[in-house]
């Protein structure tokens, strides 16, 4: 029997051997744990056999070391945990809770909260099943003992700030915070459904849901005063995301999409502590600790391997990983070396959907410029006429409308509100990958109002900048 020392504070109090009496009759093919020489039960990393206790210790130590090494989270910082109910999220929440428990040596003291995003609007489920799932999720949230919130993905369509429901234990946000909303109005659900119906491919649907979910989480984190969001993406998942993003046109942002600390976006950063583990290790850990993940089907759950770029890439990575266990680590290490040109970052706009830098300074001979040109030729003149309309003419039209401010200096918003969003506008306010995604969305006006507002604000800012360009001091001219 393995010695349980005081450092092994992650072994659950219930001795799982009582639940699994068959552990003693494993017919091992001669492999013993590489640390303590007991019979091995798990193969982790490349081909390293571990016994149960040593595996749990290794896993926990790796998780804490990732935090410690990166120094991304400071003492006392508020960190929001994005919980989805799956193996990775449950494992991450369990490890955070164990790490902050009393009596743990050298713990990093930060203040976690937990949030769950309900995506039932994407894939309508049976009412009974849905309530059973929500009950399990709420049990998880309450047992975490951290302040917990539930929100719905359609809240991203909200015209003011998104609403959420408090599940448990936040002393500082009691009743004064008016956003403890009851379940969403149906209008937002309908708007979200229409947005999804306007996209033809599963790839775009998945991408859009993922980007809007991230946007919603950032808005909520900002509202509640959290400076970081923790995601449970496993190494396998990140390798899939990396390769999939290269295929979808998000090549510029691969480095941030899979790094431990992602600082895109002004106030809220993202951390991914589970990136050191493969999905196999995480599933084994969650099984060994008798955690009970909640499985919630998503739109791509029973899809065939060719249904979308993500499903195909996932199939590819998992297939390769089963024969070559170094696949995931190699892909991630390579991705970590791909960084974008740091010098021009400060001068760029940020994409309204994913907050990545927009490559508006790409040269005339670049591939994206060529694509834009051929697309504009294909669509002929309609694109150019609406985007090159004189600002004064637009205001002229609106002058009859009583709401025009009469300033005549482009700050008038009455005309601009009704302008339709065109794909030419998008090239300035969205990164290349998001533009590619938007080509698949039939009606751009169905995007959330916060996104459309950001687009208009960026356009006005650019137009104003053009006006006063001559009067601006360029930093390099200072003697």
């Amino acid at each position, binding site marked *: 029997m393995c010695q349980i020392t005081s450092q092994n504070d992650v072994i659950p109090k219930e001795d799982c051997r009582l639940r*699994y009496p*068959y*552990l003693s*009759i*494993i*017919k*091992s*093919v001669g*492999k013993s744990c590489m640390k303590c020489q007991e019979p*091995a*039960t*798990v*193969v982790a990393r490349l081909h390293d*056999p571990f016994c*149960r206790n040593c595996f749990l210790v290794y896993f926990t130590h790796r998780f804490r070391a990732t935090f410690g090494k990166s120094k991304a989270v400071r003492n006392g910082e508020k960190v929001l945990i994005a919980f*989805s*109910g*799956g*193996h*990775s*999220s*449950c494992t991450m929440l369990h490890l955070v809770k164990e790490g902050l428990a009393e009596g743990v040596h050298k713990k990093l003291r930060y203040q976690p909260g937990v949030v769950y995003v309900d995506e039932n609007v994407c894939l309508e489920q049976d009412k009974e099943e849905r309530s059973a799932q929500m009950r399990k999720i709420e049990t998880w949230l309450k047992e975490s003992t951290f302040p917990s919130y539930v929100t719905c993905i359609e809240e991203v369509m909200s015209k003011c700030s998104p609403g959420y429901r408090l599940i448990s234990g936040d002393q500082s946000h009691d009743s004064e915070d008016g956003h403890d909303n009851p379940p969403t109005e149906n209008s937002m659900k309908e708007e979200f459904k229409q947005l999804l119906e306007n996209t033809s491919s599963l790839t775009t649907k998945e991408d859009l849901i993922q980007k809007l979910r991230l946007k919603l989480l950032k808005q909520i984190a900002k509202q509640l005063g959290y400076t970081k969001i923790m995601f*449970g993406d*496993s190494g*396998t*998942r990140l390798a899939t995301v990396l390769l999939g993003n290269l295929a979808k046109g998000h090549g510029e942002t691969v480095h941030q999409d899979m790094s431990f600390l992602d600082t895109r976006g002004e106030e809220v950063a993202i951390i991914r502590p589970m990136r050191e583990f493969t*999905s*196999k290790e*995480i*599933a*084994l850990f969650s*099984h*060994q600790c008798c955690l009970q*993940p909640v*499985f919630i*089907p*998503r739109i*791509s*759950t*029973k899809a*065939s*391997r060719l249904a979308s770029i993500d499903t195909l890439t*996932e*199939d590819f990575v*998992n*297939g390769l*990983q*089963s024969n070559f266990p170094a696949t995931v680590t190699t892909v991630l290490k390579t991705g970590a070396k791909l960084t974008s040109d740091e010098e021009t970052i400060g001068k760029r706009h940020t994409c309204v959907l994913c907050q990545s830098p927009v490559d508006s300074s790409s040269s005339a001979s670049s591939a994206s410029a060529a694509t834009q040109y051929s697309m504009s030729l294909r669509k002929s003149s309609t694109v150019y006429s609406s985007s090159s309309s004189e600002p004064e003419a637009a205001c002229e039209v609106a002058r009859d409308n009583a709401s025009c401010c009469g300033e005549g200096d482009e700050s008038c918003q009455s005309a601009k509100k009704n302008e339709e969003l065109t794909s030419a506008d998008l090239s300035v306010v969205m990164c290349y990958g998001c533009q590619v995604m938007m080509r698949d969305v039939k009606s751009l006006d169905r995007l959330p109002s916060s996104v459309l507002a950001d687009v208009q604000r960026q356009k006005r800012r650019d137009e104003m900048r053009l006006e006063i360009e001559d009067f601006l001091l360029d930093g390099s001219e200072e003697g």
Partner: protein
Amino acid sequence: MAESSQQHIDIHVEFSGGAELLFDKVKEHEVKLSHDNNPWTIRKLLVWIKENLLKERPELFVQEDTVRPGILILVNDADWELVGELEYEIQNKDRIIFISTLHGG
């Protein structure tokens, strides 16, 4: 001279992580495997599961003669790699768990 008694192997099979969706959402199954000349290996069990338990979409569970990559198999809570993978001979009262790690968490 030959014994004609039919012996059975009783095993417990579980599906989780989303794999249960292919089995009518039933997670736990008690399975009786009838004894014959060939020993019951995991390879043989997979064929049996495909023919008898799987309700839909076999390509999401099995791939050729093995399980789809991304689905873990645990035999009595040990990684199947440690007991011989497809060639492990199933014993009476074994507990075999299939955990799907596909589609996030």
